[in-house]
Every structure is written in structure tokens, then in C-alpha cells.
């Protein structure tokens, strides 16, 4: 029920902010702030009142009928990964409202209505597990975001907004066809129409075409290499809060889709597709980094770093082992904060200097020392400084990817070097050197300081103490079929015969076999699932018999 509350709070609050905006702009602002703070409060309650049912990955949820003629249901379910992303959404929601406080002066009520609707759509995407409902939420994020960019963006906002809309819409429709095809496959097998994710698991594990339909939708949102071209435009032209939400949340919906839908629904097709997808990921990492280096527009540059960072996520997802997936989840959170902060920084600079052109900046540190320090911090986060969230994420991803595909992991590691170059170059151009701009721009305001402080704290927390995040995500990731769990990230458990039997269902990925064997024999034990390690039978993912592996044992699979 609380999930419905989360969505309704935002939708109704958005309407309220719109109404308040007719009265006065600041009323709309305060309404939006209160609504998002309430949202944060609800998410906090969610954390406190988790009641994981035994053997079920779902921590909270609701299932109800919606369109009984087509057995379309209202299914909102949340597991650990969703919970983390919902938390990210709530936090960034508050920050987005704060960021827009002074920037948006026109039509404020409608602006906050759209902002809160985007948040509602995002939370819907993170929780909807009826594919029809998922598609609805997927599209619902789109229209308010389109309006945000088109109405309150910068100079070329209209073209950018339409480009963004059409890219996402087209890919979304391909996903729609894939959803229909998946439901058809299920119908042909069982004679019942359903769009229930849990029922559709294991319907078409090897269907490459259906997987591609989903993949394209998620790859556009992510964005993966050849489909990323909307992103620099949309990010650059969006208002600051729009960029923050795009980078922080909307890109994450793509990554979330990969983890939630591609791997569990199509484990075999995904395994077959993995080399291509990982290659795309690595191309994204390198290509994004190189292009980022070449940009002169602050926001455009940060946008390309997003392409680079999310390349890591694509690499991780298709490495298909727990280590990499854990890394992907941390990367999603860390990127949300670090890149989001850089966009906020860009917005703050634009407000003060009226330009985003890096060639016209320089020596800003002397003018605005506090902002310079903040920029230094987030640039370090972007380049993956140990101790900050991105480092943990990229480290885990590289470890996992190394086990899946060594050459690609090595290439991806080169991306870290590129990241160092562009991050330092950014600092050099904007904040060091001779002072280029005239006037005395004001240093950070308290409101901005607060925003950056929250993001810094989050990154430090992710970097220094990622264990709670890993723990929260692990039970959900364990149940992703087809993911090899030969190396658990967080706890060591004795080898259990039960798990080896279970793993007979898992998907074999031969190229990783020797490595896995090596690790296992190295210390005579297996890194594995904590719960399974305590001897409990692993619970099925969704319904019985659809891929229940909790540990991937090559030999078990071969037998």
C-alpha cells in the first residue's frame, strides 16, 4: 500500500503545486518541497518497516485487478534494488525542487507539477511489475520530462525536447511490441493471457528478438553507444533540475530495466547477446570519455561523461555475475549523485556567469573558493577516486567483468584513465589558471551548499561504507536467473550441496568456467549467498521452476 502512497503523494502533490502556483510562485515551491520531503519521509518509513517474507524477494507491494478483460493487473512490488532506487529518487526529488528554487520564475506551478509527475513515473517504473503497467509508467515519465525540457530549457530546447521524446517513444514502442510478443508466447504455451512479470518469467528465455525489443528501449534510456545521441542535446538544453533528473533518475530506469527484465526474462538470449552488449558498453565508456574531453560546453561535457559512466553499467549487467551487478547498482546510485552534482554545478555557474562555455571560464577558484572545492570533490568522484562511491562501483564492475571477459575489462579500465584526464581538464579549464571572467560572482548560497553537502555525504557514504547498499541489493540480485554467483561480494559461506543441485538450472557461460573453478579451488570454499550459506533452501524467483539458481556451479550446470 505504501508504494501506491508514494506515487499518489507525488501526483496529488503535483496537482496541489499547480493549483498553488496560480496563487503565488513561492506557494508552489513550498508545496513541492513539502511533498518531496513527505516522500522522503515515506521512504524512510519504508526502510524502517521492511518485512521481507520468507523466501520471497519482495519487500513490499500490492496486487490488484485493473483491466480484468485482459488480466492486466495493478502490480507494484519492491525488492532491494527497487528500494535503493526509490530512495535515490526521493533524495534527488528534494534536491531537484531545491535546485529549481531560483532558476524557474515562469509558470512555476506547472513546472513543479511536471517535476513531481516525472518523479511519480520514475517510482512507478521502479515498482511496476505488470508489463502493461510498466509500459504505462515508462511513457508517463516521458511527457512531463518533455514539457520540462521544452518549456523551461535553454536556447535549443524545442529541438532537443522533440528529439528526446521521439527517441524514447520509438524505443518504448519496440518494447511494447516485445511485451505483446512475450504475452503471446506465454499464451501459446499456457492458454492464458497475462502481463504479470512473475508469471512471464521463463516464458521465452531464449528469444533473441523479444529480448532485443526490450534491450533497445533500455539501451536508449541508458544510453548505450549507438543510441545515445539524444542525450547530450537533452541534458544540455534541459533546465538544471531537468538535467539532474535525467542523469540521476531517467538513465537509471534503463539500467534498472536491464537488471529487472532482460536478465530474468531472457537469460539465455542475454547470455548469447552478452559479448555484443559488453562490447557496446566498452565502446560507450571510451567513446563517451573521448567526446567528453572534446566538449567546450560544461553541461555537454558532463552529459558525455554520463555516457561513459553508464557504459560501465551495461558492461556490468551483461557480465552477468553478482560482483558486477552489485557494482552496477552502486554505480547507479553513485552516478546519480556525482553527475547530478556536476549538472547542478553547471547550472549554478550558468546562473552566475551566463555561459556554459568552458573557454570563457578560468580561475574561478579564486573568485568562488567554496564552489571550487565542491567542483574538485565531484570531479574526483567522477574520475573514481578511492573513498568515493564511483570507485567502489567501478572497482566491483571491473572485477566482475574481468571474470566474464578479460580483454573487454582491460579496455574498460582504460576508460578510468580517460576519466581522469577529462575530469582534471575540466577543473583546469574552469577553476584554475588566470581569471577569465569579469565581475565578482557570488560564492555558493546556503541552499546550494546544502544540496552539495547532501550529495557529498551520499558519495562518501557509498565510498566508505557501501555494505548496507550491497546487503540491500544482494537478495534481489541473487534471484536473477542466469547470473553466476561464483563470487559473492559480501559474505563468505561454506559450499552447500543443496546449492549445487539448485544450480542445475542455471545458464552455463563456458568462458567463465576456468576462472570460477580457480577461485573456488583457491581457498577451498565458495563465495556465496549468505542465506543459502546458512543452509536455508533458496527461494524461487517468482514462481517455481523458472530458474532458481542461487549459485552458479559450472560443473553442476554441466552435469
Amino acid at each position, binding site marked *: 500500500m505504501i508504494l501506491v502512497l508514494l506515487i499518489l503523494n507525488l501526483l496529488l502533490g503535483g496537482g496541489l503545486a499547480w493549483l498553488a502556483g496560480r496563487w503565488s510562485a513561492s506557494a508552489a515551491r513550498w508545496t513541492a518541497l513539502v511533498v518531496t520531503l513527505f516522500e522522503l519521509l515515506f521512504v524512510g518509513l519504508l526502510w524502517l518497516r521492511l518485512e521481507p517474507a520468507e523466501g520471497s524477494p519482495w519487500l513490499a507491494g500490492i496486487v490488484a485487478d485493473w483491466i480484468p*478483460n485482459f488480466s492486466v493487473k495493478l502490480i507494484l512490488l519492491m525488492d532491494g534494488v527497487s528500494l535503493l532506487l526509490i530512495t535515490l529518487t526521493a533524495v534527488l526529488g528534494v534536491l531537484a525542487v531545491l535546485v529549481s528554487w531560483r532558476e524557474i520564475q515562469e509558470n512555476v506551478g506547472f513546472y513543479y507539477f511536471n517535476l513531481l509527475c516525472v518523479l511519480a513515473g520514475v517510482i512507478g517504473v521502479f515498482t511496476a511489475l505488470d508489463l502493461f503497467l510498466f509500459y504505462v509508467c515508462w*511513457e508517463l515519465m516521458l511527457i512531463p520530462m518533455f514539457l520540462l525540457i521544452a518549456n523551461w530549457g535553454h536556447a535549443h530546447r524545442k529541438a532537443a525536447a*522533440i528529439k528526446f521524446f521521439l527517441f524514447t517513444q520509438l524505443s518504448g514502442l519496440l518494447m*511494447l*511490441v516485445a511485451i505483446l*510478443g512475450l504475452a503471446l508466447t506465454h499464451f501459446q504455451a499456457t*492458454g492464458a493471457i497475462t502481463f504479470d512479470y512473475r508469471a512471464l518469467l521463463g516464458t521465452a528465455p531464449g528469444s533473441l528478438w523479444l529480448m532485443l525489443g526490450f534491450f533497445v528501449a533500455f539501451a536508449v534510456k541508458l544510453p548505450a553507444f549507438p543510441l545515445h545521441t539524444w542525450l547530450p542535446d537533452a541534458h544540455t538544453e534541459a533546465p538544471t533540475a531537468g538535467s539532474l533528473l535525467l542523469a540521476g533518475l531517467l538513465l537509471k530506469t534503463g539500467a534498472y530495466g536491464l537488471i529487472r527484465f532482460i536478465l530474468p526474462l531472457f537469460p539465455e538470449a542475454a547470455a548469447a547477446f552478452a559479448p555484443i552488449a559488453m562490447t557496446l558498453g566498452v565502446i560507450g565508456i571510451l567513446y563517451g570519455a573521448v567526446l567528453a574531453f572534446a566538449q567546450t560546453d560544461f553541461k555537454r561535457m558532463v552529459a558525455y561523461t554520463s555516457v561513459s559512466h553508464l557504459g560501465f553499467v551495461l558492461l556490468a549487467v551483461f557480465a552477468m555475475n553478482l560482483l558486477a551487478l552489485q557494482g552496477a547498482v552502486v554505480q547507479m546510485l553513485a552516478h546519480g549523485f556525482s553527475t547530478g552534482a556536476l549538472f547542478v554545478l553547471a547550472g549554478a555557474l550558468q546562473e552566475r556567469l551566463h555561459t556554459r562555455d568552458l573557454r570563457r571560464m578560468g580561475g574561478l577558484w579564486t573568485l568562488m573558493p567554496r564552489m571550487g572545492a565542491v567542483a574538485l570533490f565531484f570531479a574526483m568522484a567522477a574520475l573514481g577516486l578511492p573513498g568515493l562511491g564511483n570507485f567502489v562501483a567501478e572497482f566491483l564492475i571491473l572485477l566482475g567483468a574481468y571474470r566474464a571477459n578479460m580483454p573487454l575489462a582491460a579496455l574498460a579500465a582504460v576508460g578510468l584513465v580517460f576519466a581522469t584526464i577529462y575530469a582534471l581538464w575540466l577543473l583546469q579549464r574552469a577553476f584554475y589558471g588566470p581569471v577569465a571572467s569579469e565581475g565578482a560572482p557570488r560564492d555558493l548560497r546556503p541552499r546550494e551548499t546544502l544540496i552539495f553537502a547532501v550529495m557529498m555525504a551520499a558519495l562518501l557514504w557509498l565510498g566508505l561504507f557501501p555494505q548496507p547498499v550491497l546487503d540491500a541489493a544482494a537478495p534481489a540480485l541473487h534471484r536473477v536467473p542466469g547470473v553466476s554467483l561464483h563470487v559473492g561480494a559480501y559474505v563468505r559461506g561454506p559450499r552447500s550441496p543443496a546449492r549445487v543441485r539448485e544450480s542445475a538450472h542455471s545458464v552455463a557461460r563456458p568462458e567463465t568456467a576456468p576462472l570460477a573453478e580457480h577461485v573456488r579451488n583457491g581457498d577451498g570454499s565458495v563465495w556465496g549467498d549468505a542465506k543459502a550459506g546458512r543452509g536455508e533452501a533458496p527461494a524461487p524467483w517468482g514462481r517455481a521452476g523458472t530458474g532458481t539458481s542461487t549459485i552458479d556451479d559450472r560443473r553442476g550446470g554441466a552435469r
Partner: protein
Amino acid sequence: MNVEYLAIAKLFLPEIVLTVGALLLLGIDLCLGKRDTRRALVLLGAVISLAAACVALLQWDWRPAEAQYVRQAAVTSAVQRMAPAVGRDALTHAARISERDARAVTTAYKAARHDSLVESAATPPADGAPVMGIAPYDAGLSSPSFSAWWLFTADNFALIFKAIFALALALALLLSTRFPVARYRGEFAALLMFAAVGLMVMVGSLDLVGIFLGLELASLCCYALAAWHKQDARSAEAGTKYLLLGSLASAIFIYGASLFFVEYGSTHLHVLAHGAAQSPLTLVALLMVLVSFLFKVAGAPFHLWAPDVYQGAPTAMVAFLSTAGKAAGFAVLVRVLSAHGFQAFSEKWLLLFIGVAALSILIGNLVAIHQNNVKRLLAYSGVAQAGYVLIGLVAMADPAGGTLLNEALPLTAVIFYLAAYMVMNIGAFAVVGIVGRESGGEELSAFAGLRARAPVLAFAFTLLLLSLGGIPLLSGFVGKWYLFLAGVYQGQYLLVLIGTTMSVVSMYYYLLVIKQMYILPAADGAQPIRVGALAAAGLAAITLVTVAIGIYPGPLYTLAQAAAKSLMP
């Protein structure tokens, strides 16, 4: 009055309500010369149309489909047994009813007879025969009811379309109370109502001649309506074009029907359905009939008249024609194709339909991008929408589609979409009409800054356009979802893929309009737009219904499904 005549009247209740209403309207218009009353006249017309819609829905047959089939099978067989002049010749000539079929029909007939005896014992005779009752048949060939029952039906399929037409008419009239239709407001409304009567006759008819009758009644009214603004060259062009091309389509249709008569000695759908042989002549005749109605629904490449007519004709008439007219065309197509004898040729006409569907979707959407006039843009979008509906018709083709087809998914999707489309498209044209009236043009630029000039209008139009484009939680999306689902379930992946891809293109040009309204500033000196109270109420209702169907499509789907199932399999 003879009970039989009452029974016949029940076949035509909505038509009778509308006809009487239209005549009443004309009478009042003749008696009262004052201009002020004329607006009230249009309102009266709208109320009468609403009443007709209610009548159509009140006639709804709530019994399970199987019970309806028994009755209809009995009707068919009774007619065929009692009508040697019409049926038997054809039947012996074609001899298409296998012995098993004939036995089944006879059994059904007996069962139905028994049923009707029981029913007439249970209900007081003053009620007359039940709507689908067969009591009149026993009266024999000479009775007047015979020809009526032979030619017309009032099954749920016909009724839902009658309701759609009546509602479309009511909305078109309601929204047009302030449209400039010169001095002849009363006649305008009456002609529209007669056109609706024609469409109703069309969907209720079981005989090609009956269909032709309705088609011509509707067309003749529409020709006059298209050329309504006598002084306006565009309107005259629209009228001429529509007259010429419409007559051509009618001619093709009647030629096809005559070929059927040559082959079978009858133009009745049941005869044709049971008797259709795989002869070249039948195929040619069938294709001619189909093509003439593809013309009516403006499917590419038979769409060329649509943009010009839509642009020149009065907006209220266009709103009606583009929704009710299109729906009627599809209803007749479905009625003809559902006659299962034609399924034998499904590969042949399927090819035609797949081609027309793909072309309509492609041409409609791609050409719409370049339109500068919103009415023309909506005309091309209407061509594309016809293509989407054709996906559903294509999906009807394969009778061996498994259990889903028993649930009549494709046909249900078609009816659902036509109903949803009626609501949203009329709304869209109403907005165009209002803006056109107030700013003197229907160019894209007339919509600039509409957000500031008429916020409610802009919001409603945005929702309607998004619905036309197929954005979730609006009725258009659900309709497309069902159509695409039906297409996918029939394995028409390519067609569905074209449909989805082109939906994106359609979003592009709908967004262009939305951009005009929301992002571009109004032209200098642009006035705020006055929306009449009636139009505002109608528009609010339309928008609400669009959203309501989008969020909770269950009821409409159930209704559409019942209508789809009432067609004889």
C-alpha cells in the same frame, strides 16, 4: 396497429427517433423565422440525437451470445426455407450448405421456434414480438415483416454502431452551436441527422441493397453539407470532389453488388455467405464491394478526397464524417467479411487489406508531417488511424486463431477503437472549429500561444492529441494496444511494427501542434478565445471520457465484446 409493424419498427427505433426529430426540427425551422431560436434548434437536435443513442443502447440484447446465435440462425434458415424466390434458387444453384450445416440450421430453427413459443406464452402479446423474435416469420412470405427481417437486423453489432453514430451526431451538433453555418442552421442540423439515419440503415442492413440505400442517404446529405458555404471556393471544391469521388465509390459498390446478383440471384449477405464459391466473378465482386468501402473509410490509396473535403467542408460536418462515417464504413466491411463464406478467399482480400493498412499508416503519418493546416493534418492522421483499424480487420481474417478469436478479440478491438476514436477525434475537430472561428483560420500558426489565450481549450486539445498519438492512460492508447495485440496474435508482426514505428512519427506532428500551443508565443493582437458554454461542456465531457476509457477500459471493452460476439460466426 398490426403487431408486425411494431416488430418491424423495433428494428429501426433509433432511425425513427432521429427521422422524426429531424422532421420536427425542419418544421420548427420553417415556422420560426427568428435567428435567435436557431441555436436552440441545434441544441434540440443534439438532445434528440442523445435520445436516439439511448434508444439504441436500451435495445441492447443482454443475453449471452449463444442465445442470440440460435435466434439468428433460425431467422436465416426460416427466411431461406420460406423464400424460394430469393433464397432457394441461389442455394440450389450454389449448393454451399453442406448437409451437416443444413441439419444444424434446422435444429436451431426448431429450437428457436420452441423458444419463441415459450417466450410468447410468457410475455403478454401487447408487447409484440421480442426484438430478435421469430414470431413474424411464421406469418409467411407475404407478410410485410418478412422483407424487413430479411433485409435488416438489430443485433448488438448494429446497435453499438447506431449508438456511436448518434453520440457522434449529438457531440458534433453540441459543439457546433456557434459555428458559422450561415443562415440555415436548422437545415444543417436536419441534414446531419438524416446522414446519421443513413449510416444507421447501413450498419443494420443484411443485404447489399439495404446497405446501398443507407449509403446513398448518408452520402447525399454529406455532399450537400460539404458544399455548405456556397460563397467559399474551398467549400465548393470540397463538395464537388466529394460528390464525384463519392459517386464513383457508390458506382463501384453497386457494380460489385450486381455481379453478385448475376452469380447468385441475390444480394443478401447470408445467401452470399453460404453460397460464395471460389469463382473469379465472386472474387471480383467482393473486391469491388470492399474497395468501395475502403474508399469510404479513407484508407490509402483511396484517401485522396479526404484532405480536401476535410479542409473545405464545415467543421461540424467533418467531425461527424471523419468519425461516424469512418465507423460506418468499417462496420459494413466487418459485416461483409464476417460472412464466413468469404473466409475462403481470405488470402486474396487479406493481401488487399494488409497492403491498404500498411499504405494508410505510412502515407497518412508521413504526409501529415508537412501539413500546415490542422484540418488537413487531422485528415491525414485519420487516414493513418484507418490503417490502424485495418490491422484489426486483417487480424479477423484467420478463423483458426485459437481461443482468442472465440473471445472475438480482433473485432472487439476494432469496435473499441472506433468508439474511442469517435470521442477523441470529434473533440479534436471541435477545438479546431472553435479556434478557427475565433482566429479566422485553421493554420498551425492560429494555435500559437493557445495556452495563454484559452488554457482549458489548449489542455483539452493536448490530451486529445496525445490520445490520438497513443499515449498511455488515454483511450487511444488502449485502443491501439488491443489492435496491436490482435495483430501480434495473428502473427502480423510486420504490420504491427509499421504501426508502432509510425505512431512515433504521428507523435511528432501532434507534438508540433502542442508546441504551437504551449511553447510559442501568441501572435501580436491575438484575442483570447471565447468558448461557448455548450461547447465547453461537450469538450469537458469528451476529455473526461477519453481519460476515463484510458484508465478503466473494462466497461467499453465488455460492450464492444458483446457487440462483436453478436455477429454470427
